[in-house]
């Protein structure tokens, strides 16, 4: 299985947003809490649409939420 190379700052952004819960973020973006957990733990790379939705919830540019990390051998 290919390794997920999309990193994110969702945990920090949730903290900055008054310790927003994963459930709240999931409800605001229309996905399950488990999907937010998987994204936050870099297990799952979200679609571009969901990535924009998450960035919009935190009112921040998408590049401040997600970054692409090249595979280090």
């Amino acid at each position, binding site marked *: 299985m290919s390794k997920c190379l999309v990193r994110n700052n969702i945990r920090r952004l949730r903290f900055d947003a008054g310790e927003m819960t994963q459930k709240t973020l999931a409800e605001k973006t229309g996905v399950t809490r488990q999907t937010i957990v*998987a994204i936050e733990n870099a*297990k799952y790379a979200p679609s571009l649409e969901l990535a924009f939705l998450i960035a919009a919830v935190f009112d921040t540019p998408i590049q401040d939420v997600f970054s692409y990390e090249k595979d280090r051998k």
Partner: protein
Amino acid sequence: MSFHHKSIYVSLVNTIIVMSVYYWWVSGRYASGVFEGPNAGAEVGKSLLILIVAGILMQIIGMIVFNILQAMVTGNANPSFLVDERDRAIELKAVKLAYHLMALVLLLAIIALSLGWSIFSVFHILVVGSAFIAFVEALTQIILYRRGY
């Protein structure tokens, strides 16, 4: 656990129950010689139709019972039925694997047919193969959910 994740466990249990009952019933009919003679093809067809209808009904009943039990245990009368992109991506991976396995099962059935096996045997290679594939598909999804994706 999302609705889609839970429904996989229902499918898994359902597949095991339906296939066990079906093989218990069919083995009895096989022993009594129903699948021999000129009406063998029609009898195999009838058995498979019953299996398909029973499988669909059991899946519907299973989901209803599961949701009632879940509402009773969690106290949440309005569970979420949300299926999101990760659920669909996990399902797609499992379905892709299932299609590859189905091609193998079809090949096995064609080989059996070319070797002169009976219609009963060839159809039951397909049925057992399909049940095995449904089992692998469900297990694949469970593993992917446990890993995150």
